[in-house]
Structures are given as structure tokens and as C-alpha cells.
């Protein structure tokens, strides 16, 4: 038996075994809120916001949709009263930590959360997306969690400039609460949150610094001989201009030149 019949919010569905509840919900078109989930990254199960209620043999349990693999016939409730209650409290606790920011704000409004524990002003909800994207996808592990418990935080080694960081900014992009800002100032890319400072390469044509040298190295290593290497040294603005010949076939002149 490779597949199994489940009921999700009253909808019967036959699904392959070990598929996650979140994937089923996405297929059916049911929205489940997530903070620490990203489809390119292994589910981490830390924010618990995607919690749903499952019923198996009459016993109810609460599991996280992002990483719960369906094994047998279960009934899933993704949005009942109990589930909403849990989600509200999670959001309330997060508001006590970071206040209304990014996706937390979005969900807090959606679930009409009334904060009882105050409104905090930290920047990070410790969802782990930045750490995991850096480790799993980019593969450089420039940053990690440090300390534990309530002291836990995202940081670079020794809170110093992370030697492994290539300045790609994926950490910033995946952050659900915009805790990580990437700024290009003069000839440096600065990611303050993780103490990163990266020297930028200048565009060969306009001389404007535009891309971290380390990022170019990284891409070169990854692509090998697959691509014209000097493309990396030209900024996006100048690329079009430089490659006018190559662009021409696609932007034809209508024939009456």
C-alpha cells in the first residue's frame, strides 16, 4: 500500500504515504499559516504555527503540518477552534518578543490577536530560515544559532565578521520578519545583523561597485566552465548595453531598417 485515504477539513483524498499534511493542504487549496517553513528548505518545525489537529482511532493529537508524514487513515482539521487557539497564543508570544513585524503582523491581524504579554522589540523570531538556508542551500554555514533557551539568537561565529559569508543575501530574503537588512554602501555590502562586511567588485563598464567579490568566486566555483565568466563583472544596468548584438535577434527591427 503506497497510498492512503485521509480526510482533510471534510474533504476525502487519496494521498501517497509519507507526504506531509502541508503539501496535501496546498494541493487541496487550504491555507495553513507558516513562519519557519520554506519549500526549498527542510521543514524545521520550530514555529509551530502550522499546527493542525489530527484524529486517529478516535484519539486527537496536535502535529505540525510542515513535517508530519501521513502514514495511515487520519482525519485532519486544519482550522478548528482548538487549532486557532494554539495559533493565537503562538502569535501572542511572538508579539511579546518582536512586536508587529512582517508575517507575524500579517497573521496577528488575520487571527485577531490581542496581546496580553506586551509588545516586544526584538528583531528575530528564531524561525531558523536564515541559518538553514545558509547551511542547506547555499552550503556555506556562515551563521548559526548560538546560546540556548531564551538566550538563543542568530549570530555569526564569535559575533565577528563571518568568514564564510558570501553576501548573497538569501538570509535576508527568506526572513519572515525582515530582521536582516542588506545594504550596499560605497564599495561594501553590509549585513549588519550578522556582522558581515563584504568588499564589492566594480562593474567593468560603469565602475560602480555592485557585487561581493566572494559571491563571484562562489558562482565561478559552482558553474565551472559553463558560462562566460566576464558576465559576472558587469552590472545589470550595463549588461543590456554591452550585449546589444546578442539582444538584437530578439528585438527585431521590423524589417524596414
Amino acid at each position: 500500500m503506497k497510498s492512503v485515504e485521509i480526510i482533510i477539513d471534510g474533504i476525502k483524498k487519496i494521498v501517497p504515504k509519507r507526504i506531509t499534511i502541508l503539501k496535501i493542504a496546498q494541493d487541496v487549496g487550504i491555507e495553513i499559516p507558516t513562519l519557519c517553513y520554506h519549500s526549498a528548505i527542510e521543514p524545521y518545525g520550530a514555529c509551530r504555527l502550522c499546527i493542525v489537529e489530527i484524529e486517529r482511532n478516535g484519539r486527537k493529537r496536535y502535529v505540525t503540518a510542515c513535517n508530519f508524514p501521513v502514514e495511515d487513515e487520519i482525519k485532519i482539521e486544519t482550522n478548528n477552534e482548538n487549532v486557532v487557539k494554539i495559533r493565537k497564543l503562538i502569535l501572542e508570544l511572538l508579539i511579546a518578543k518582536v512586536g508587529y513585524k512582517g508575517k507575524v503582523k500579517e497573521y496577528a491581524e488575520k487571527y485577531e490577536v490581542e496581546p496580553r504579554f506586551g509588545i516586544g522589540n526584538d528583531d528575530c523570531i528564531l524561525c531558523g530560515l536564515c541559518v538553514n538556508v545558509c547551511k542547506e542551500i547555499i552550503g556555506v554555514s556562515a551563521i548559526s544559532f548560538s546560546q540556548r533557551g531564551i538566550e538563543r539568537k542568530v549570530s555569526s561565529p564569535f559575533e565577528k565578521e563571518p568568514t564564510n559569508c558570501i553576501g548573497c543575501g538569501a538570509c535576508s530574503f527568506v526572513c519572515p520578519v525582515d530582521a536582516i537588512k542588506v545594504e550596499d554602501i560605497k564599495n561594501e555590502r553590509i549585513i549588519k545583523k550578522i556582522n558581515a562586511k563584504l568588499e564589492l567588485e566594480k562593474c567593468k563598464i560603469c565602475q560602480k561597485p555592485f557585487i561581493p567579490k566572494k559571491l563571484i568566486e562562489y558562482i565561478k566555483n559552482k558553474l565551472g566552465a559553463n558560462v562566460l565568466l566576464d558576465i559576472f563583472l558587469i552590472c545589470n544596468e550595463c549588461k543590456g548595453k554591452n550585449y546589444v548584438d546578442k539582444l538584437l535577434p530578439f528585438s527585431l527591427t521590423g524589417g524596414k531598417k
Partner: protein
Amino acid sequence: MKRSKIIVNVERCFACRTCEIECAFSHSKKNNFFEFMKNPDRFPSVKIKKIEKFITPLRCLHCDFPSCVIICPTGALEKDENGIVIIEEKKCIGCGMCAIVCPYGILNINRDKKIHIKCDFCIERLKKDMLPACVLSCPNKALKFVEFREEYEKIRSR
């Protein structure tokens, strides 16, 4: 619709930017145009740009051997069976490497809005036998959706 491309007759482009707006609106989650204009939730993936002597709506050229697809660390970018380079936005982590390797400087990501700006040939419309939004909307018919090789050869031979 295999190996289709959008080509531009640059002489007909007035830089009116209708294609940009239509592109963004057609990918928007909003149904009402005015609502969308008030608070746009999408960036256009076609951009009017001046390149040397002419102005042209630049958009992804869906290269035959796209470096962006090769470099993408999450597999968010993929070339489908019709040769269209498509992004699965959910999988995008915004590392921006595709933008760096794009030879034409067309791909872009927006870190603040957390979206990737990438032409998908309006694949959802194509499935419904509709033309891509930019092509359909151009008031001066500067854009054309064609089976590329044939058209290219046609023009070449003139």
C-alpha cells in the same frame, strides 16, 4: 507552443509602458484593476529600457541553455518541456545568483518585497490559449508571440 518566443518590433515601441502594467496586473492576486493600481502587489517582469539607439521592452529571453537554471541552488528555476524558463516562486530564496549570471541583466530580485521578477510567458494564460499579457496589450502591436526559429529565419532571409 513549442520553442515560442516574444519578439519586438522596436520601431513600433513608443515606450508607453502598457506592457509593464499589464504584466504586473496579470500576475497579481487582485482581480480589480483599480484596486491593483492603488496598491500594486506585483512588479512587472517586462521592463522598458533604452539600449543604445533604441527603446525596447526587455524581458526574459528564455535562453536555450539558461545559466540561471544551472546556478539556482534550490531548483526554483526550471526550463519546462516547452522551453520556457519558469520560476517556482515558493522555492526562491532570493540569493540573486540568477540575476548575476543572466547575460542580459534581465532577471532581478526584490529583497524588500521578497519577490523574484521573472517572465513566465504568462504560462497560465497560454494554457487557456490566450496570448501573453504584454503581447496582447501592446497598443501598437510591437510585441509578437511567435514560433521563434521559423520567424527568425523568415526575417533573416529578407
